[in-house]
């Protein structure tokens, strides 16, 4: 008796890998980091040299005298004084400083009782105007 055996259809070997749990974990981690992340603020710095009031007053006289910007309360509001001129904004100060000689640098004389942001803006204005040598003179 002949029995014809059909040729077996061998299915190719299937690899089963259950990824469901890994995807669960991945999404949970993604959600966790999205919720907990605080967008980092980008920071930079300004690097003025330091000098005390007494040193800046008793400095040796030279051919070039530094520009002196006073950051102080003027008529009850913070302002920048450069010679006889008074400026209320950083932009106005930078514009005027831009037209002055840069060789001797600039002294930023910061009085007390002002917002720090306003004083730092004066240093920034000097940098923007092209001064490489900026000196911070803190009030006593």
């Amino acid at each position, binding site marked *: 008796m002949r*029995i014809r*055996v059909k040729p*077996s259809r*061998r*299915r190719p*070997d*299937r*690899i*089963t*890998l259950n990824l469901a749990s*890994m995807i669960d*974990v991945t999404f949970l*981690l993604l959600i966790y980091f999205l919720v907990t992340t605080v967008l980092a*603020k*980008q*920071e*930079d*710095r*300004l*690097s*003025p*040299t*330091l*000098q*005390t009031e007494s040193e800046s007053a008793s400095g040796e006289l030279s051919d070039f005298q530094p520009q002196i910007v006073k*950051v102080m309360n003027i008529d009850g509001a913070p302002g920048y004084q450069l010679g006889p001129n008074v400026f209320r904004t950083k932009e106005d100060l930078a514009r005027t400083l831009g037209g002055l000689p840069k060789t001797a640098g600039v002294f930023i004389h*910061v*009085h*007390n*009782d*002002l*917002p*720090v*942001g*306003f*004083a*730092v*803006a004066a*240093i*920034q204005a000097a*940098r923007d105007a092209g001064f490489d040598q900026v000196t*911070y003179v*803190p*009030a*006593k």
Partner: protein
Amino acid sequence: MKFGGIRNREKVLIVDITPMIDVVFLLIIFFMVAAQFARTTRAEMDLPLEPGEQEQQAEEAGLVINVLADGSIIVNEQTLDLDQLEAMVRDEVQNVHGGDAKLVKLLIRSDRNNDTSRLNQILNRLETLGVGAARLATEVPR
């Protein structure tokens, strides 16, 4: 008659994902610890909104002095008064820079709403120690 020769058994491939889970958890721990360290040196505050010097080269921060809006001084999570700050900077100058105060690197992070009186007090103290320059941190406007 023998028909038992061919067995269509499905081959099951076992992938051991245990090491991957280990690595994932190690990465999580690493990032959590690193974030914690970053938080300890830089206190949360509103820095002056200025673009700064915009130099490409990253510079070493050195000693980071945080001055909060209420005037309190925080260095390495410790609240200090002016005398303690002066002592800390003096130690830094002596122990790390061999007494040369010009070499000490300081980054002052002061809240923009803070009063200049406090910043001036700090800078006057630093100047008396011989520190020739201070770096003031700014927040780059978006």
